[in-house]
């Protein structure tokens, strides 16, 4: 990892870390968990609700999911035996999961208020749930340790402030907010080197993560021309441009190939 030495953030991080409550740059509060945060909220100026829907598929032979060696932590070994890497999950029929699909460009100067309900990132069975998620700038992210072992929550941000906070006790929660958009922001647990999550931080609500059936939908878009990007952690990105009229629904398909 090559990281630039940013003096201001270093000093800030140092101060925060000395206080031992560091979660660099974000605000930390307690808040009650609420449903799935991935659902986009209504746009500020949704004139005629247009939608982009579609499916992400994979052609070629999907790689075998690699088993993960959990022996370095007996808790993980017992809690989640047989855990495999979540890098490329391809269902029969080629549907591919954990693709982050979002509007990359085309919204102009529109601004959107961040929802107040938090997005939850859980550490359970020495695995992040969900593995890929989206969040809006300013929207709270609640990070929970459901495991009876220690996790460190390491947000390896580039545009936002990097942070690394320990959650040594089961049931610990922290809330973090991001101050600027960043696609994608990796999360890592350095205690359990296999634990990765990817967070897409956007300044608008038009994003989705493909489920096991590979489908996504971006709902409530204003009419216009958009660049839609599909991001996958190992397969890379693809973009497409779509023009939708008011009240229209357009279908966009992304196909990734085995490399």
């Amino acid at each position: 990892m090559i990281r630039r030495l940013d003096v201001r953030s270093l000093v800030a991080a140092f101060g925060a870390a000395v206080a031992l409550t560091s979660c660099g740059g974000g605000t930390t509060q307690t808040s009650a968990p609420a449903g799935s945060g991935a659902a986009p909220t209504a746009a500020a100026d949704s004139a005629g609700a247009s939608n982009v829907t579609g499916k992400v598929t994979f052609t070629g032979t999907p790689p075998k999911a690699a088993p993960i060696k959990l022996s370095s932590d007996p808790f993980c070994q017992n809690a989640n035996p047989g855990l495999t890497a979540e890098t490329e999950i391809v269902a029969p029929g080629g549907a591919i999961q954990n693709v982050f699909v979002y509007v990359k460009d085309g919204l102009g100067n529109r601004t959107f208020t961040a929802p107040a309900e938090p997005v939850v990132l859980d550490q359970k069975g020495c695995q992040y749930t969900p593995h890929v998620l989206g969040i809006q700038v300013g929207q709270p992210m609640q990070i929970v340790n459901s495991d009876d072992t220690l996790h460190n929550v390491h947000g390896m941000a580039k545009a936002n402030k990097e942070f690394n906070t320990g959650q040594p006790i089961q049931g610990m929660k922290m809330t973090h907010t991001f101050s600027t958009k960043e696609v994608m922001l990796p999360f890592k647990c350095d205690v359990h080197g296999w634990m990765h999550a990817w967070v897409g931080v956007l300044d608008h609500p038009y994003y989705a993560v493909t489920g096991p059936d590979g489908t996504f939908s971006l709902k409530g878009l204003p009419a216009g021309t958009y660049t839609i990007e599909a991001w996958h952690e190992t397969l890379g990105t693809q973009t497409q441009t779509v023009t939708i009229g008011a009240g229209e629904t357009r279908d966009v398909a992304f196909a990734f190939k085995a490399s």
Partner: protein
Amino acid sequence: MLLPLFAALVAASTAVLIFAGGLVTSTGSGLSVPDWPSTYGWFMWAFPVSKMVGGIFYEHAHRLIASTVGFLIVVLAIWLGRAEPRRWVRRLGYLALAAVVTQGILGGITVLWYLPDAISIAHASLAQIVFCLTVTIALATSTGWKSGYIADPQGPRRIDDSVEAGLRSAKREGRHARLNTAPNDRTLQRVAIVTTAVIFVQILIGATMRHTGAGLAIPDFPLAFGDLIPPHWDSKIAIHFAHRVGAATVAVFIIATAGHVFAHHARRAELRRPAILLLVLLALQITLGALTVLSGKQFIINSLHVVNGALVLVTSLVLTLRAHRARFADTGSADAGSAQRDPVRGAGSRTRDDQGRSWTRRGARA
């Protein structure tokens, strides 16, 4: 008698510490404990062993070993301060202490600042300097060093060219021929210094490569992408290639130094031994470097390469210092009348006893 033993123990523990530090980087565990100097809010020594899981095992163990070595160096510095007659050795003790404290702080802030390359590289490099300091102290307090590696007049095997020359000239001048077997061989001194410096630079390149993630930038060995010279370049390939060129340079210098020792001082065990060791460690180091690449950075091989690199450095340092032994004021060398041959220390200001010790006047000089 205990002090030299303790100094050797401190030096050995520093090597263990470097291995432990290598493991932290090699396993990517550096940030598995987010806080410092506490560990997940616990006082370091109170952190439960059962919680040393995953990466915490390496990171926390490294902190425990480092604190132990730090404590040993505190004891060493105090001990030297009270019992060591030579001022420069006492000062080395204080310097080692300052270095190890700085090292601890660098280690702490690199964690709090999420391992910025510059600080991690500084931490890796200062580790080598701390090791050099503890080894130098161990050497300076050793009996061999203190005796000035005096030849046993009954042991002709230990007499080499330069000693014979010294003997002849002593005879000519009618002096009592007490042998100094550590005479000034300028060529050896120079080549040994350069060798040590080249090894140190090579280690800096290694640290830079390691912390910028360039360890596998060239995936094959001994060729680079099937060629002698990489067919394409970027900064990672360049730093990686520099480390390989560095290795070749180091090899040339080590062979030159060792060759010079074998050719001219083969019977001086205090030079011959580190020269042989240097060649063995060099071969091992290159093998471990190659295996690091070919194994895709298997973490134990990788860490052994780090610690063996440190051993190459200090072995060369020991050889260098021994080659310069005669230049140290308190050399037990030579005949009593040669005090004026001390070029480095103000020889005139001291008195010596039979063993060449000058500490009787320590109080007066201070």
